[in-house]
């Protein structure tokens, strides 16, 4: 495998020959394209259908989230993080709240921790469901999309009942939770687990042994574990390449060390392995939810946190395992009510860098499959 650092940058301005008599073609995919998951622009250099190289152009959805943080108090910035990875808003909130809690040296009470874990894992399932639907749609199977959206609805209903919002939930507060779990929360979650287990088998039935699916995903977009580490790729993409690295186990945050679950790992680092790893993660998340919902303790849901937060001068880096990979927050405090600097390490942005490496010498159709399997959200890439 090539060392990604030695890859030559693309010379996109001067294709070797002219349009008609040459076999090299530079085409522009996106920002308005059905399969780039938002406003990603990919400039492809093709030889017939073979990809010679590609370049990602990002920034179409840049909203300056990190800059906004510098003009908001710690509490005021909390809802903004939901808008980065908007399909896994709860995970983003968890990472930010825990980072600030670390800065303030407070810890959320156990009951809050349990509810946080349940909601975050539910969100991981929702995020993976959205990934599965769109990924399959990109490869041409249009039906799984509707199945996954039907079942994702049940998760959103739980979110809506819990905090009133479905997508950008703002579910957590610094120091714990704002809302106590509603009556019947545990029953809803248990019912959901029972409801969704067979549904996951149903998705697998449609795809896992489907001949065309196998041909389209096996050996496509292969990336080795070494390359993943060199590029900083994390999450299911890294695990599918055989590296057993999950922050929930490696650096347990929240109260993940209380739960018994496994880290699914792939072997080949191709699109199919990433698919299998994510399908296994569905089941592992359900396992965690089941354990958490049985063990929710009684007690307060909010730690003692000052109304006006003035963290001591210092800096903190805290990262969690978001559905898409390592989501890190680097916060510098100057002792005032507003952070001096917030830097987000978004998994999608870092994972997207592997696109060029994974797509070289593959076909155009594989670029679509690889974009899908990287599971990027442009809100998070551009911030």
């Amino acid at each position, binding site marked *: 495998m090539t060392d990604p650092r030695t890859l030559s940058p693309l010379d996109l301005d001067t294709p070797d020959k002219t349009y008609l008599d040459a076999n090299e*073609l530079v*085409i*522009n995919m996106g920002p308005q*394209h*059905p*399969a780039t998951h938002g406003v990603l622009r990919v400039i492809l250099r093709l030889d017939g*259908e073979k990809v010679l190289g590609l370049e990602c152009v990002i920034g179409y959805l840049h909203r300056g989230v990190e800059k906004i943080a510098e003009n908001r108090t710690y509490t005021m910035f909390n809802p903004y993080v939901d808008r980065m990875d908007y399909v896994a808003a709860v995970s983003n909130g968890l990472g930010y709240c825990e980072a600030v809690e670390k800065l303030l040296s407070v810890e959320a009470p156990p009951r809050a921790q349990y509810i946080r874990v349940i909601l975050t894992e539910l969100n991981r399932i929702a995020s993976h469901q959205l990934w599965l639907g769109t990924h*399959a*749609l*990109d*490869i*041409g*199977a*249009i*039906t799984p*999309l*509707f*199945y996954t959206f*039907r079942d994702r609805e049940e998760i959103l209903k739980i979110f809506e009942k819990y905090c009133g919002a479905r997508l950008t939930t703002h579910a957590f507060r610094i120091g714990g939770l704002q809302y106590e779990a509603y009556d019947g929360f545990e029953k809803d979650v248990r019912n959901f687990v029972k409801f969704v287990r067979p549904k996951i088998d149903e998705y697998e039935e*449609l*795809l896992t042994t*489907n001949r*065309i*699916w196998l*041909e*389209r995903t096996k050996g496509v977009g292969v990336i080795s574990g070494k390359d993943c580490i060199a590029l900083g790729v994390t999450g299911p993409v890294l695990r599918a390449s055989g590296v057993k690295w999950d922050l929930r186990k490696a650096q347990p945050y929240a109260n993940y060390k209380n739960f018994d679950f496994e880290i699914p790992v792939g072997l080949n680092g191709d699109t199919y392995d990433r698919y299998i790893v994510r399908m296994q993660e569905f089941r592992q998340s359900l396992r965690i939810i089941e354990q958490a919902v049985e063990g929710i303790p009684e007690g307060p849901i909010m730690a003692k946190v000052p109304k006006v937060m003035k963290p001591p001068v210092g800096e903190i880096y805290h990262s969690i395992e978001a559905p898409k990979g390592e989501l890190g927050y680097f916060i510098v405090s100057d002792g005032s009510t507003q952070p001096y600097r917030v830097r987000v390490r978004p998994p999608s942005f870092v994972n997207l860098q592997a696109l060029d490496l994974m797509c070289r010498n593959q*076909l*155009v*159709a*594989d670029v*679509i499959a690889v974009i899908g399997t990287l599971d990027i959200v442009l809100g998070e890439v551009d911030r």
Partner: protein
Amino acid sequence: MHDLINYITSYFGSNLTPGAAGNFFWATVYILLVFVGLSIAVIAMNWLERKILAHMQVRLGPMRVGPHGLLQPIADAIKLLLKEDIIPAEADQLVFWIAPFIVVLAAFTVFVVVPFGPTSAITDMNIGILFMLGVSSLSVLGIVTAGWASNSHYPLIGALRSSAQMVSYEVAMGLAVVSAILMTSLHGLGFYGVAASGDTGTLSMIEIVNAQMEQQTWFIFKFFPLGLIAFTIFAIAMVAETNRAPFDLPEAESELTAGFHTEYSGFRWSLFFLAEYSAMIAVSSIAVTLWLGGWLRPFPNALAGRTWDVIFSFFPGLTFLALGAITFYNVARMPRHPLFRIQTMGLAGFGAVLGLIGVVLLIPEISSHVQNVFWFSAKVAAFMYLYIWYRGTFPRYRFDQLMKVGWKVLLPTGLVLLILTAGVGMRDEIWDLLQRVTHS
């Protein structure tokens, strides 16, 4: 005037198709009938595809325009016709303008030889099946010119994919067709339950069906499993030939936005749409004619006899009655609200029309005339359902895999099949030859 009436009536009682009989009046009438029928079929297909696909995907599909979205295709057609006719500035104006017409022309012309019944075809050519294959493959010309004339990258790639795909699948398709044509002339042995027929084979669509009638078997069951394999090859190739899922690479939405018709809009786009659906119906009619006994009712050999004839003659009427009953069941389920009154009435009217057609079709004199067309359409409709089912089930093949399936799987299978079919059909002669060689 008198001459004209004489000319018109002279066709009555003829057992030839109007084209073959040389009667231009009835040929024109048949052309209009086929054209109107095809347009209605495409409209119905549009609605059915959206509804069936929707129900496979746990959603409702069109529900707003008319009861259960029945008027949606009409609304869409009006919208497409009223749209601005855009020809991109960079496009080759003339070629861009002509391309959709080539495609539509090719798609519609093939229906000249489609046999809806022993005499219900526009004409009967002695090279019917060749004509169909030849003309339907002309549509690739329109697709390539459309992609090239758009002067844009995505349409160009779509057009190139499409031409490569259609050309390579035509080979496998041709081999399967040849094996079916062989069957029209070959004798079978009693072991296969096949009676001997005339010695000469035929390419005429009507004669192919007649051969199946005389041999008392549909070719899908002949020389089991050879006929079945040939049919399977054709059924796969025809999906690729019409650029439908899972072989819909030329218009792969997630890769090439819309493939060769990316730059087309409004009326011109609707022509491509029309052509795609009529091409689907055309290749399905080839499959039905060659392997599924064309207009013959199911199992004419196993379930033969006067009683079964009468029972099967009820089918057309009963089908429409059942459709009417389903419609009335849905009328009963409509919301009881003044806002829905007109919709409910419309749906009830639709059901009443269906029921009325059903009752009319139960009259023996009429039913005996529509039998053939009904069975032919029913078989084609089954294929249309298959098309929709594929689309709801399969992911899309990649280009190289598609080529691999075409050249490395279907083509060799087709070749071996052809030899086997010929061998099995000629085994009497081969046996004779062997005996003569060994005994001399």
